[in-house]
């Protein structure tokens, strides 16, 4: 389905959002990255603290993607408002 032109994200925003969302997915789906015991942190084996850390990081990445989309939409809206004026 073709995205109607006025809803299309700018190329830069699209790439940035894709990267921001792909990183946490890759970080958790590729299990060999973190299926190990060391380095430990406060007694937590790496496997356990790495995933807990990603809970927070994933929130930041997703929030970042949200902000980028918001900003892109605002820019488009401002441009359209100027055209209308």
């Amino acid at each position, binding site marked *: *389905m*073709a*995205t*109607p032109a*006025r*809803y299309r994200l700018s190329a830069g925003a699209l790439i940035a959002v894709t990267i921001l*969302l*792909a990183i*946490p*997915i890759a970080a*958790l*789906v*590729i*299990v*060999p990255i973190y*299926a*190990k*015991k060391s380095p430990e942190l*406060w*007694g*937590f*084996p790496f*496997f*356990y603290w790495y*995933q*807990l850390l*990603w*809970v*927070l990081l*994933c*929130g*930041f*990445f*997703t*929030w970042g*993607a*949200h902000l980028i*989309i*918001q900003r892109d*939409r*605002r820019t*488009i*809206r401002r441009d359209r408002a100027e055209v209308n004026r």
Partner: protein
Amino acid sequence: MSGHPVELAAGTKVDGTALGVLIFFFLLVSVGGFWAARWRRADSPHSLDEWGLGGRSFGTVITWFLLGGDLYTAYTFIAVPAAMFATGAVSGYFAVAYTILVYPIIFIFMPRMWSVAHSKGYITAADFIRGRFDSKILALAVAITGILATMPYIALQLVGIQAIIDTIGIGGRGNAFVRDLPLLIAFAVLAAYTYSSGLRAPALIAFVKDSLIYLVIAVAIIYVGVHTGFHHLFNAAQTKMTTKNPKTHAATGVFVPAKNNYWAYATLAFGSALALFMYPHSMTAVLSGRSRNVIRRNAAILPTYSLMLGLLALLGYAANAEKTSVVGTDGKTNPQLAVPHFFRDQFPHWFAGVAYAAIAIGALVPAAIMSIAAANLFTRNIYREFFVPNATPKHEATVSKIASLVVKFGALIFVLSLDKQNAINLQLLGGVWILQTFVSVVGGLYTRWLHRWALLVGWAVGMVYGTVAAYHQKTQTVHHFGSSLATFPFTHTKMYIAFSALILNIVVTVVLTLVLRAVRAPSGRDHTTDEDYYSESDLVAESLPGTEGGMPAPGAATSRT
């Protein structure tokens, strides 16, 4: 209220203090549940939009509580630590990876679902399928899958409450009616306020539930850090998981996944993440949001619950390190008692009561939303579609209310009359089944290329393969449904059955679509337009005032700049 154990006639000790605290919180949420009917009340409360979706009016904060209360269920609180306690990381801790992965995924497609549902007035995923693919049968398949997957899930919420009741000391031996009475009362009250208040009831109760669970986990994890020590906790877990069973010579569990179960861990996490928002109760909570931005913001802030879930999972290891007994009042070993017994043994009676209340109320919120979601599916995609096509909104709401009662009592009878292993087996199957609707629902959000008949056959193949594969999984203790993992066809790699079934489903759907398109099979009329998938998009200024606690309406936020 006495802090001393009270002797009952049956000979079991009842923790009076904990029971008192539990009853206090239960009464509190019951009052809230009934009062919710007046909360944010609409002018015309008698429609499915109002009863079943809370008027589609919830902002970021309410949606955060509602979705958190909905997705992180009592069964999760009991089962994830139980799995950690019994067999370690692959069966338990994957839930952390799973509940992280889910958010970037829903960030991508859920706003589209929200928009098209908002634009077209869809209440269920099956409504969308009906409109998009113009197929009553495919919509029926999606609706029935949703109902089938939800029923055992509701039943498991009751199993969660049962674990609490058992820990307090009511239950076990003795008269069956007296034993089940607390569960009956709790469910009757829940059914009554869900009937009268609809989705507003769990939305309001979720505030209590989530606050309690955060409090309990914070206290418990600090206690574990100071008293047990994380070194000891993980060492004890490693010792247990790597100890070999003298009979089978297999390790007890998995402490850190090794090469042979990377795929198992990854597919469990990824497959479960794809499946979660196909469940009707997740869809209902998302569609009750006020705007696309509510969904996107929540994708970023909901992971806080996953942090809580991760720490809760570690309580399974804590129970192991503290050598918590998991023998129930019936004298049988049951790992599901790990967390309740941990609180019973390590904390004062009153605080254990707060923990029990958090878990028990944690069962009520999802049970209410699940029954509403299943009732909506029945009303819209079975009752209205096939029996009363011209049902008015008021008529729909009435049918849905009654259906929600039937669904809940069905789950209750299920739990009371059948072995609870059946509920657990069916919930495993529920996860396998619900993921088979992913191709139609998410595929449909992006393309109409997939043919409706191909989607139906792909769904059927996934359902049959998944069910058969799950049926053949044996363990030491059970002959069937022993595991959610099976070897992927023609390989020796163990994977999550739902994920393997999804792959087959996709392959069949794509191949058949090519064939059906080649022979120009009729593909029906698309009732949606491209614009629908962006409706109330960020470009459209929203006129809704920022009425909700501190969070301005999305429109207000964007228009400031």
